[in-house]
């Protein structure tokens, strides 16, 4: 367990000392969201209607942006080989990497999401829900993404392939996530959507590390 947290701490430290990762995905997220009013027009009613979807799609893309670095940096300097032969099971290693990825490139998005939601004219009921829903749903993005990242590690032009592999698998998260916010805005029951979203995240928690570990063993063999 302490090894697990050591690994997470190491990754967090690397991310913060290099500095660019967090700000990069954060500014990407903000820019994508800002592009939508420019593209669709400034009408507040339209923005409020599409707002939850825009925030979710931007979060998916921002997640994808940093996903290919999840294992790639460690693969390039050889640290990944050492970690794989180390005492930590590969599945747990994947879990640590996923946690670090989520903390560095998704948690910041969730923190600024309420402000962006406000600018998109999403009603107050929706803003609280969208933060909560992002917290429940986004771990699934990192977990499913880890499978794609593990399969494409060490590949030339892996990033493009990664998006083709991973985005179709993200669709349930997107749908349930947006549905929950829409339900909150319409004053309907939010719980069923949250439960389903939680189910997807928990399912990804089981399948993701197993498949990603298999992918890593394969990519490094």
């Amino acid at each position, binding site marked *: 367990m302490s090894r697990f947290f050591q690994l997470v701490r190491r990754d967090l430290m690397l991310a913060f000392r290099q500095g660019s990762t967090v700000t990069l995905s954060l500014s990407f997220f903000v820019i994508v969201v800002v592009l939508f009013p420019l593209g669709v027009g400034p009408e507040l009613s339209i923005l409020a209607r599409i707002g939850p979807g825009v925030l979710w799609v931007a979060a998916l893309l921002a997640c994808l942006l940093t996903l290919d670095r999840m294992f790639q940096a460690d693969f390039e300097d050889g640290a990944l080989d050492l970690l794989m032969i180390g005492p930590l099971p590969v599945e747990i290693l994947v879990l640590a990497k996923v946690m670090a990825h989520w903390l560095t490139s998704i948690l910041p998005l969730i923190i600024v999401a309420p402000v962006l939601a406000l600018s998109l004219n999403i009603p107050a009921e929706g803003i609280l829900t969208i933060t909560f829903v992002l917290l429940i749903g986004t771990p699934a993005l990192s977990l*499913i993404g880890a*499978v794609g990242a593990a*399969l*494409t590690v060490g*590949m030339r*032009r*892996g990033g493009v*392939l990664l998006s*083709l*592999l991973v*985005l*179709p*698998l993200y*669709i*349930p998260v997107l*749908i*349930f996530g947006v*549905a929950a916010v*829409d339900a909150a805005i319409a004053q309907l029951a939010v719980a069923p959507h949250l439960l*389903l979203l939680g189910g*997807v995240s928990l*399912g990804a928690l089981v*399948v993701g590390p197993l*498949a990603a570990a*298999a*992918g890593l063993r*394969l*990519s490094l*063999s």
Partner: protein
Amino acid sequence: MAIDLHKYANPKRFLSIISVIYPWSVWLTVILLIAGLYMGLFVAPPDYQQGDTVRIMFVHVPAAWMALMIYTIMAVSSAVGLIWKHPVADLTAKAAAPIGAAFTFLALVTGSLWGQPMWGTFWVWDARLTSMLILLFLYLGYMAIWESFDDSAKAAKAAAILALVGVINIPVIRFSVDWWNTLHQPASVATMSGPKIHSSILIPLLIMGLAYTAFFVMVLIIRVRTEILQRRLRVMQISELREQ
């Protein structure tokens, strides 16, 4: 049972078996396709609402069946390849993918051709259409990962992992898309399920389904055989180079 299956995993024995099946599959494809198309296009009565447009269904519905069936076959043979490390199972999965993608594409195209006169638009964000489109992307991703490894043994494993993750996800995607669709729009497209199917329509439909299956077996055999022979050729070329 298990021993029997292992016996067929030998590429040489596999080749001799499929060369027996192959001519049968060709004849079955030809006969069933002619029979099915004739019954579907000429014998079956036009629908009282949709007129002759309903005949697109005889091409469309079996293609959608095949798209799902082939992904299942692909996932099963990927699992077999991953667990027992049978090269033939990997090759079968690889060979099946483009055929499945082609059927998915066919289902989408014929569906939108049918949608234009019926719904007045080529594309509707209906749950079924959307999940078929996603299935097409799953197929494309699977095919892309085969292409992106130099080492074919590695590619087989990576593709198998992807196919299995995909097959776990397909029910979730299907369910979520249904959920999404019922939330965003009322059942305006319920006409798609149509009136109850009469046997004059059902029989040609089933024949077309069998014809597609026979066609799939035929093309699969050609593709798997090509793969095996290609690998053999490569081994021979490499050993020839070594001798020089």
